[in-house]
């Protein structure tokens, strides 16, 4: 990332903040009692100031600073909200927008002194006003509906609810860790059900010295206070009881509010118990953190498997309840974590309209591109890799699919061709279709080409559409005579297939000659966790990705035949090459006497049998890549850790046999 794209990130984020400032101002004007809105605005201004400062945008930082001061006074109640204040703030946001755009595009900055003066006037005005009578009280945890209910239930069960207002000593180092020690201490005797500021802000040290926790406990207020004040670097802890009445009344008030803002309440109810006032629809997360989370979830999945195995081993059926729970939670967590990695395929699709337009023009064709399902989400790492194959396929449609206008009209087709790009979910897969209404696959032409390239024996007469499609994906078969400007690499469809398979996906082509071609790519939603068939090979466990497995059969050694000095088996009139998986991986070859389990696996479009020692079963496994020293091993896609703590290699079916 160079500095200019960093600037873009800043601009995007700053515009978000300005947008929310605008919305919050509108909301605040309607509902001035809502402390949350003004807190949000203050935080937005504060963040904006910090970001602008970091980027060295002094004018922006300076101006935002003035705005932040005014919002701070509003927040603490030192400045009363009047129409004038609102108007000044609205104008300030406008000024800020102008400043931002001028800064980003490096244009000269328009004077903004006057606006600064009006903000300063508000600050001055506040300092003349009498101090507010409610000083200090604003810093409390405003209960949300969910937690009111929790408190009501807790009280009914004999717990007490307290709000614990904790003040850290000035200059406390690692404030977030200190907060952690407070949580740690409290959680021995209490349940923390809410925090203000929200726990994420506490963790990011986005608070000064004070925070409030709402807890349920059976201990006395005095004891809680002693407990917290017994933690080093805590200046004070004020413990206030929260009564049932408050919880109840509050709940009604909130219900009313909820009706007024029915649209936003849905999001609030489904949120976690501890959270902030407002749920932002978008969060920017560092990818490294995501990867860490995914990794953790992976570990959790492994540990779940361990627990299940442990419990299965014993007889304690009553423990199964707990395990079911663990199972459910980890599965949910797994999906939640995965969702963080998911990005809309729009990112890839977005570049196609321009590409199709330019290419169509240079080829003298008229082409309409229709895009469907661009909001379909899939794993970030897949999105990053699927771009090139799609470019290739679309280019194929333009070059070889869609006919020139005159030819189309002569055939009675509309003059402009259509390419349709469609993405959609199907189970735990995503399907991407590239369809064109061009001339379809010319089976005879493919046959001739294949014969020419020695992919078919001389004199081959009829081939089926299926065979034709298979030929298209053969290495060395390419009907494209020119290396086009787009990819510049002249990759064939075999390369497209290789990429798709490396992503554990499949690709298929259907065509109606003269009318259309449809290429379908089927990809797993994510690559981090996959379903695999576990087999035993030379005493070791090996995992085969389930989408590569066609079927499992059992054969007797007599059924192994030899064709051209290679072992094969007959399966429903098909001759399949047979390999010993152990041998392919460099283990001791399997003993071929007695019945042999054989896994039929698809390798680069054709079926191949692998003899294994034993079948173990299906399981979800977490892929850990083999990095560094081990490097790329042919036939091995990675490794996983099994429930028993042992390591299993994951087979890469596309490179297993050469």
């Amino acid at each position, binding site marked *: 990332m160079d500095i200019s794209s960093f600037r873009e990130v800043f601009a995007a984020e700053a515009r978000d903040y300005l947008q929310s400032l605008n919305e919050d101002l509108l909301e605040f004007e309607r509902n001035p009692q809502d402390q949350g809105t003004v807190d949000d605005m203050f935080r937005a201004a504060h963040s904006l100031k910090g970001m602008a400062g970091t980027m060295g945008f002094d004018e922006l930082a300076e101006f935002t600073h003035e705005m932040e001061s005014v919002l701070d006074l509003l927040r603490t109640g030192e400045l009363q909200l009047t129409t004038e204040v609102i108007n000044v703030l609205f104008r300030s946001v406008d000024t800020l927008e102008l400043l931002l755009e001028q800064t980003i595009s490096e244009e000269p900055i328009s004077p903004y002194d006057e606006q600064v003066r009006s903000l300063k006037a508000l600050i001055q005005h506040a300092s003349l006003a009498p101090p507010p009578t409610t000083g200090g009280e604003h810093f409390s945890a405003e209960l949300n509906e969910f937690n009111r209910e929790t408190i009501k239930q807790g009280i009914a069960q004999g717990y007490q609810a307290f709000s614990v207002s904790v003040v850290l000593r000035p200059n406390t*180092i*690692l404030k977030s*860790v200190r907060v*952690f020690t407070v949580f*740690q201490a409290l959680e021995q005797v209490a349940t923390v059900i809410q925090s203000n500021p929200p726990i994420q802000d506490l963790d990011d040290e986005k608070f000064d010295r004070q925070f409030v926790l709402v807890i349920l406990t059976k201990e006395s207020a005095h004891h809680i206070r002693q407990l917290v004040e*017994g*933690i*080093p*670097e805590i200046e004070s802890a004020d413990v206030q009881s929260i009564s049932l009445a408050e919880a109840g009344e509050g709940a009604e008030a909130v219900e009313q509010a909820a009706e007024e803002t029915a649209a936003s309440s849905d999001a609030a109810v489904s949120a976690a118990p501890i959270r902030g006032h407002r749920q932002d629809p978008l969060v920017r997360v560092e990818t490294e953190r995501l990867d860490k989370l995914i990794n953790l979830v992976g570990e959790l999945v492994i540990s779940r498997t361990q627990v299940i195995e442990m419990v299965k081993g014993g007889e304690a059926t009553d423990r199964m309840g707990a395990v079911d729970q663990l199972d459910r939670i980890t599965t949910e967590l797994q999906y939640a974590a995965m969702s963080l990695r998911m990005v809309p395929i729009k990112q890839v699709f977005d570049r196609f309209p321009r590409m199709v337009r330019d290419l169509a023009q240079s080829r003298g064709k008229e082409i309409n591109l229709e895009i469907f399902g661009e909001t379909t989400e899939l794993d970030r790492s897949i999105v990053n890799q699927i771009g090139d194959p799609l470019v290739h396929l679309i280019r194929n449609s333009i070059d070889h699919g869609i006919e020139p206008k005159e030819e189309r009209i002569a055939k009675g087709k509309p003059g402009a061709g259509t390419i349709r790009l469609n993405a959609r979910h199907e189970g735990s897969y995503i399907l991407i279709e590239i369809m064109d209404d061009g001339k379809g696959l010319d089976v005879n032409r493919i046959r001739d080409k294949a014969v020419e390239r020695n992919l078919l024996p001389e004199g081959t007469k009829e081939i089926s559409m299926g065979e034709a499609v298979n030929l298209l994906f053969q290495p060395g078969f390419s009907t494209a005579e020119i290396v086009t400007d787009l990819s510049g690499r002249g990759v064939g469809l075999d390369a497209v297939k290789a990429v798709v398979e490396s992503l554990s996906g499949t690709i298929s082509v259907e065509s109606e000659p003269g009318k259309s071609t449809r290429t379908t790519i089927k990809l797993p939603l994510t690559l981090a966790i996959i379903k695999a068939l576990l087999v035993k090979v030379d005493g070791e466990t090996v995992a085969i990705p389930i989408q590569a497995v066609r079927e499992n059969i059992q054969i007797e050694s007599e059924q192994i035949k030899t064709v051209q000095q290679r072992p094969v088996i007959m399966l429903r009139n098909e001759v399949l090459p047979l390999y010993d998986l152990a041998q392919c991986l460099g283990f001791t070859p399997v003993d071929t006497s007695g019945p042999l389990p054989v896994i039929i696996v698809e390798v680069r479009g054709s079926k191949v049998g692998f003899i294994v020692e034993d079948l173990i079963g299906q399981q979800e496994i977490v892929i850990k890549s083999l990095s560094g020293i081990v490097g790329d091993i042919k036939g091995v896609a990675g490794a996983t850790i099994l429930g028993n703590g042992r390591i299993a290699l994951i087979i890469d079916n596309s490179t297993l046999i050469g």
Partner: protein
Amino acid sequence: MAKTVLITDDTAFMRMTLRNVIEKNGYQVVGEASDGEEAVALYQELQPDMVTMDITMPKMDGITAIKEIMKIDPKARIIVCSAMGQKPMVLEALSAGAKDFLVKPFDAERVVESLRKIGS
């Protein structure tokens, strides 16, 4: 009776500094360990009321030592005293069972506060 403390730090100078502060404030230093292994052995032998624990040390680091000591005595009161002030490490030490952490350089008062609060 004065509360007893075991000091763990790999530098003699820091052990001396800590000993001065601790003894001046009415606690008794019963032992000094210069690495994690020694701390675990001395903990078992001396059963001190509190332990100060450096993190970066030869042989066995402080975090491992905390885990080992907590295995021996789940009620152990360990105070981390280290220059290492990076959140993940400190959190790891606390999760392992440490009761407080001080980031070097620290002043005497902060050490005393920790001994007083953790020791009670």
